[in-house]
């Protein structure tokens, strides 16, 4: 190989190496920019989600207050003989309409009695059977609320010994 060829190869190799370095640098810068943009975007999305969650929470408060009032209204007339069958039906219908309205806002009331105590959705305020390990809901004192599966407020409940230690789930589906 002639000396000129060697120099030409070396120059060519250096040029290619410089070009590769330039490309790597460009790519690195572009990647860094993308990463930076991505982190900013993630942050923005998170902030928006948090703001939306806070907004949703605030907006349903008056609805929850109304649901509370209807629940207590129903309780007030629960004693037998206080209302005619038709009156009781009126209260029940209003309550159902409110349930439906709440469901449009993604809100679900927690007010079932006779179900096992679940500390995620129930807050016990009193226990009628302190020695019993298996407890169920005797009485709902203040309804609880779920929104899109998240607990907004747990239901305040009086608990007591479960009548059946292994209650079968309601509406169970055969395997």
């Amino acid at each position, binding site marked *: 190989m002639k000396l000129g060829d060697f120099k030409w190869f070396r120059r060519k190799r250096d040029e290619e190496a410089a070009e590769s370095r330039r490309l790597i640098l460009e790519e690195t810068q572009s990647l860094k920019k993308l990463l930076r943009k991505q982190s900013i975007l993630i942050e*923005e999305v998170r902030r928006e989600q948090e703001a939306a969650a806070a907004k949703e929470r605030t907006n349903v408060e008056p609805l929850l207050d109304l649901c509370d009032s209807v629940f207590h209204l129903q309780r007030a007339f629960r004693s037998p003989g206080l209302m005619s069958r038709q009156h009781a039906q009126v209260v029940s219908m209003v309550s159902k309409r409110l349930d439906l309205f709440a469901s449009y806002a993604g809100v679900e009331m927690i007010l079932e009695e006779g179900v096992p105590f679940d500390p995620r959705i129930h807050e016990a305020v009193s226990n009628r059977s302190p020695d019993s390990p298996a407890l169920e809901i005797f009485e709902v004192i203040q309804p609880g609320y779920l929104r899109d599966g998240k607990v907004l407020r747990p239901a305040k409940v009086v608990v007591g010994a479960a009548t059946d230690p292994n209650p079968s789930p309601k509406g169970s589906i055969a395997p």
Partner: protein
Amino acid sequence: MKSLVCGIDLGTTNSVIAFLKDGYPRAIPVEEGSAILPSVVSFDPGNGSHWVGQRARNRRAAFPEDTVASVKRLMGKETLATAGQKSFRPEEISSYILKHLADRASEYLGEPIEKVVITVPAYFDDAQRRATIQAGELAGLDVVRIVNEPTAAALVYDHVRAETEVESPYVLVYDLGGGTFDVSVIEIKGEIKEVLASSGDTALGGDDFDERLKDYLLEELRRQAGREDLSEEVSLKVRLLDIAEKAKIALSDRPYVEIHEVAVAILDGKPLNLDLELSREQFEALTADMVERTMGIVEEVLREAHLDAAEIGKLILVGGATRMPAVHEALSELFDQTVAHSVDPDLCVALGAAIQGGLITGDSVGQILLDVTAHSLGIKTVDERNPETGDADHFSTIIRRNTRIPVSRAEVYRTLADNQRGVQVEVFQGESPWCSENAPVGDFFFPLEPAPAHCPVVVEFAYDREGLVRVCIDQKGCANRKEVTLDTRQRKVAQEADEPGAVETPVNYMSEKARRLAGDPRLSESVRREIQRVAASYEEAIRAGEGEDRMDELEDVLLEVMEQAEEELESGE
């Protein structure tokens, strides 16, 4: 990769975990979207499992023997906490809380949490501090530092942009939580914050205010029912406590609250309703002794620190119960100055711990931009006349400066004359006690229904992030209301006009971040100017709806200058 150091406020009633992100401290949602975790642990003796937080608190009344709360009171002591058949050292119980917080934070952040800063009350002795470190170790955490709670709170306010510089090095931290009260005086010597004196009351907190109001409501029910024998059965107690807490919160924002609660009790088969109006004045009269008690402790701490009230440069509020206006008023009266309350008082200590964590790892802490009111907002009243002109000129503040927005606040005013025809509502913003020295926002006439003099008129301001203030005026008892929306930015306040970008709100998170960097005094003037210039072009292009290519180009330039700025901050040049 640098490991993250989270900050934990391990409280008696509640705990919070926070982290530093881009120089900004954030609390992490740990339970059903909430950042506040009740400091309660409950065990299932049957299978040895346990619950922490709200679920544990929910089990407390059902399984009191298996549930442990307020374990912080036992830290560093020989006393064991019993749950079921087992006994636990207090630090073991605390470790469950710490582990739960770290696990939830880990899930949220997508990286393991190994190092933490934990806060403790200033009065904690060596044994109590060691027990806290042990709790962290039992939770598998490396406790890189223990920080005093008031110091952490002060650290947050060091980085709040809206706060004005004060010359005095003394800071008083007033911490009224759910069940405890602490007050500390701190001396700030550069980066060092030394607690000069600290005291408190471990049996006084916001819950006591609820309890007091609940007792009042029960008395009111007894009076309405004409039955002294109305017993405090569980369901009634729970309902009344709920109502009391809601009323207390509402009264922090407005002068009256209407309570319309159906069937709080059933008596002889008939519902007993609670239908009344409660004024802030009544609530404050009911609870005045408790606020006074805290002020007595504040004075005691000042004496211990050998300081006069006038020597305190800054007052910081911590704990949810400090949202009560009576607390602000009592402190403002004693210290004759406004109170720092712009950071969420429930999260403040954890945010400070997160800043401390960031400082340990060498992260730069930026100036915290809060959505707060830049100026106080209020109306003109005739309480005082201008000595020169003789005109009514008193500025009655409704929303104080540095209040977090969006916010809604109301105050009650009274008419001067019988059958007064109306009132001219003149809204101003500024800090002077004289309206003539503040900036006018707008005014309107509100016609009144005929009524005797001293008829109450409630003026409510609702202020949002866009700078709009919705003024709602209500002549009480007359079904006479009016709502007017005013734009506080239409007539700019002189100081604001000089600030770059103060008038227009940021267009997105990038422009917000650019503005934050442009306002960072640690950056060189040339970098800050460059960011300002590029951010202005970028914002203008967005507002003008420029094409995608142009936006990409500007976004790249903006990212580049922001990156340079962050590198400059990191290198500390």
